[in-house]
């Protein structure tokens, strides 16, 4: 039953499924109700599930996550929308000191099935704070799971898996890919889907492993196509915490080279962690150091500069070249 659809629509459909399956699932956030969210990801849910289950909250991110924790304590499964990546930070305290730690604090008595949906990344010509890639902050925070999607198929399954997970899950949505139409099968049942913490070899290759996630997967695949000299294997990480190192190491041990690309600033970004782990575990297989391609260590620039800030096809290919010319 494959059809052309988009990541935005697939998440919407996944949320609808989750809400139908479990009356405890709630949607909450700014403008998620009648408007259906500024990206329309919750479109139609307010109409069909009502104001009690699709909650337009006051404009306060700490309040959103803090009350979601309370709702979870009462047995609900809230899915919070943070309107844009750059507006997560008021909720940092509730997320890092409460949401992430509650299960451990309680000695396992409390479960925190809360999902934070965060549209992230640049490339949409927006003003400040609308193009950030803050995933490393979350990956450094014990107690959270962090996942992201690169295509409608994963979007459909993984949002449902996130909702049904008893741990807090941060679900990053690649906003500049929301509306790209590709094939996906939005039927079938959840148990047929790959687990949300597994990486996926998106394209096989023999010479170098190119690791990417979220919005960069498409760029990575394009790079692999464009590179006529090297056979590039593209791994879509999908889960950023924990990372599926089994898949990653197997690929790197085969190819002997690795490049990791993300939009976030390189310094202390997720690429650092992955590079360090690959080096620790595949040292004697590596022909070159793991190459990182990412955003610069500067604030996200005004949009007229973002094409230079974001790692594009050329920057990724340059990274691949560096892995060979080392």
């Amino acid at each position, binding site marked *: 039953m494959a059809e052309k659809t988009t990541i935005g629509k697939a998440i919407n459909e996944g949320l609808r499924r989750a809400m139908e399956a479990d009356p405890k699932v*709630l949607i909450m956030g700014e403008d998620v109700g009648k408007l259906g969210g500024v990206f329309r990801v919750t479109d139609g849910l307010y109409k069909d599930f009502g104001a*009690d*289950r699709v909650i337009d*909250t*006051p404009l*306060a991110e*700490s*309040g959103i*996550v*803090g*009350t*979601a*924790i*309370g*709702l*979870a*304590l*009462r*047995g*609900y499964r809230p899915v919070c929308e943070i309107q844009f990546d750059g507006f997560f930070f*008021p909720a940092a*305290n*509730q997320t890092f*000191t*409460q949401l992430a*730690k*509650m*299960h*451990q*604090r*309680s*000695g*396992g*008595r*409390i*479960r*925190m099935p809360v999902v934070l949906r965060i549209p992230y990344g640049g490339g949409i010509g927006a003003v400040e704070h609308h193009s950030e890639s803050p995933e490393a902050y979350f990956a450094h925070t*014990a*107690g959270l*799971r962090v996942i992201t999607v690169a295509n409608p198929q994963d979007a459909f399954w993984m949002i449902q898996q996130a909702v049904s*997970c*008893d*741990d807090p899950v941060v679900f990053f949505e690649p906003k500049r890919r929301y509306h790209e139409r590709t094939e996906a099968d939005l039927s079938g049942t959840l148990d047929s889907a790959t687990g949300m*913490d597994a990486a996926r070899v998106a394209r096989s290759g023999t010479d170098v492993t190119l690791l990417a996630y979220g919005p960069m997967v498409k760029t990575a695949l394009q790079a692999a196509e464009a590179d006529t000299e090297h056979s590039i294997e593209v791994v879509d990480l999908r889960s950023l*915490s*924990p*990372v*599926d*190192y*089994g898949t990653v190491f197997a690929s790197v041990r085969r190819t002997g080279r690795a490049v990791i690309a993300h939009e976030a600033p390189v310094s202390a970004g997720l690429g650092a962690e992955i590079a360090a782990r690959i080096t620790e575990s595949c040292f004697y297989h590596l022909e070159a150091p793991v190459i990182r391609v990412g955003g610069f260590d500067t604030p996200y620039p005004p949009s007229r500069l973002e094409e230079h800030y974001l790692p594009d096809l050329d920057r990724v290919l340059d990274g691949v070249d560096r892995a060979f010319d080392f």
Partner: protein
Amino acid sequence: MSITTAQEEPELIQLLTPDGELREHPDYPLDLTAAEKRGLYRDMVLVRRFDSEAVSLQRHGELGLWASLLGQEAAQVGSGRALGADDMAFPSYREHGVAWCRGVAPKSLLALFRGVTNGGWSPDEHGFHLYTIVIGAQTLHATGYAMGVQRDGAVGDGGSAVISYFGDGATSQGDTNEAFNFAAVNNAPVVFFCQNNQWAISESNDRQTRVPLYRRASGFGFPGLRVDGNDVFASLAVTRAALQHAREGQGPTLIEAFTYRMGAHTTTDDPTRYRIAAELEEWKLKDPISRLRAHLAGTGEGDEEFFAAVDAEAERLGEQVRQECRSLPDPQPLDIFHEVYAEPHAHIDRQRAEFADYLASFEGAGAEGGR
């Protein structure tokens, strides 16, 4: 130019004077049996005794820290006893008296301050959430929980209410104010119970607020009340009314319980650096326990025998608590990895296994786990 602020003196709701005399209050009638009054007295004495034992346990190195509730027994026991079985409380870190009322064992509290656990009891079982140390965070949890109560249809007659405890300092936090607003907008069945003990560590009320704290509520559109927090009757009556108000679907209330932190902020604090001794002397005259004792003695509802029995029970409690504390089992190294996630997590499993190997490597060497 008409820009002015009303500055009337706040009304302090009081049912029992510092001398132990009963005062009628038109809005908060309270009809307690002698046995109930004695129960409140016993609660307060036992809680105080437990608390002082904990302070001494800390001095003896058995606890890492203790936050004493000395002086706040009436606010806590009064409000704690106002709660019904189906109500849920969200404490800060000093609510040992409320914990007592909710049936949380003293040793569970000690376990937290001893460093044996970050939690220590089952919130659901006791209707008493875990202690929250990050100031103000629990006010939002309480509000969210109350929104859940609404969604469960548990508002209305026989419904459930939620109470959130916090201090005067906590009213300055963004979270607390967001909680006020979320509760107001959603008309959530939550009571905000602020123990204004006059101090946030070394900072007095004038560093936190320009006006009495109970007034904050009106700005968010719900009632705020100031109660004599050293008066267990008033604390009980006002909290009962506010909980009932919430249960009936009439939304939140802010109660400011005006009281005093008679001890240090915690066992690591030295209040002589920032407040004068006379202040404490003044508040001793308003002591919550002696005023109830005076009342019971005056009305004959409590006699010397009763007081002596409670004191003896307190001594036994002190002894018991001392024992229990000392025999709390230490957690084991690999517990570090327990319960970080509810569902399987490959990375944590790997780290646990590696650490287990590391620890085992010392065993052969005859050393003790590497230390």
